[in-house]
């Protein structure tokens, strides 16, 4: 009897198989868990943006904060800007203005900032790969309130960030979000040089 004969049979449920995150996105998109952002342009997409079911509901629901506060058009414009590969810009002091990584924990939560004279919005998400954002949901800046004035553990910011992480873990169990050394690892083209 060889050594191999004494080994127990392999449980097919416990076999580790490699699935790229792109394959996971394809599967999640096919099942409706993610939705590719539909581009309103004749230009081809230069970056990728996928919305979760919650984010799509926020857009569809006439009673959602996004629609009630009248920021929908500006949010769509920001998402279009991202997908078309237009400039991810910093201000004159080198601070991020359009896209910002939030202070952890949890790590690797990013926001697209919709900064308007009236109501502002924040789009929370995580990078799956370079140039590939998985957008969890939209938040009104007024609801998130002041980061510094609220206690860190119970602030609306913290809750929103935790929710973003929880959604990610449901969609991509066991897969960490993309991490890079600088902003150019996340946004490969047309991006100002700013610290993250």
């Amino acid at each position: 009897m060889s050594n191999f004969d004494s080994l127990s049979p392999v449980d097919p449920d416990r076999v580790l198989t490699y699935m790229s995150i792109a394959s996971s996105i394809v599967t999640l998109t096919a099942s409706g868990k993610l939705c590719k952002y539909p581009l309103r342009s004749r230009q081809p997409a230069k970056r990728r943006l996928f919305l979760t079911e919650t984010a799509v509901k926020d857009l569809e629901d006439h009673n959602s904060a996004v629609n009630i506060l009248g920021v929908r058009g500006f949010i769509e414009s920001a998402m279009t800007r991202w997908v078309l590969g237009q400039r991810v810009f910093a201000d004159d002091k080198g601070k991020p203005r359009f896209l910002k990584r939030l202070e952890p924990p949890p790590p690797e939560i990013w926001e697209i900032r919709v900064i308007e004279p009236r109501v502002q919005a924040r789009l929370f998400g995580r990078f799956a790969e370079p140039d590939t954002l998985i957008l969890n949901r939209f938040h009104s800046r007024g609801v998130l309130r002041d980061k510094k004035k609220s206690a860190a553990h119970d602030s609306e910011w913290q809750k929103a960030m935790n929710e973003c992480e929880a959604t990610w873990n449901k969609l991509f169990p066991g897969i960490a979000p993309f991490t890079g050394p600088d902003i150019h690892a996340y946004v490969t083209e047309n991006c100002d040089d700013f610290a993250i």
Partner: protein
Amino acid sequence: MTSQSKQIVMTTDQRADYGFARVRDAAYDAVMELWRRRKAEGMTQSQLADALGGDAGWLSRNLRGPGNWTLKTVGRFVEALNGEVELKIHGLEDPLPVPQNYHAYIGYEPQTVTDPAAMFSLPSGGLAVAKPYLRKGFPVAANLIS
């Protein structure tokens, strides 16, 4: 939600906001591109402020982002940067000057094939030629430009 990419309809007011934000962003990007070029040529922010009439605070606020920009803001910057505006609006259905055969979602979308057997054709020469995947119900151009 079952579709892979569905167009969620905006109201007339939301489309107006969207159009306004897109125009404002395009103007900001265009001005900033010329400003980066002028900086590379040696122009300082102080010189730009002088060219705008000396209001350094106004300049700093407006360089941060286009949140409060108006057409007059654009005009002031264009003149101060010694530039010229060329504006073109096209129809969404107009073809691109240079046709694109790549978009960022390639490899990230479920592929729907109308006729799997038609993916490959065998010409008389004997070499199989791959045909592009086509999404059901979409014209070829729509598949190419996402």
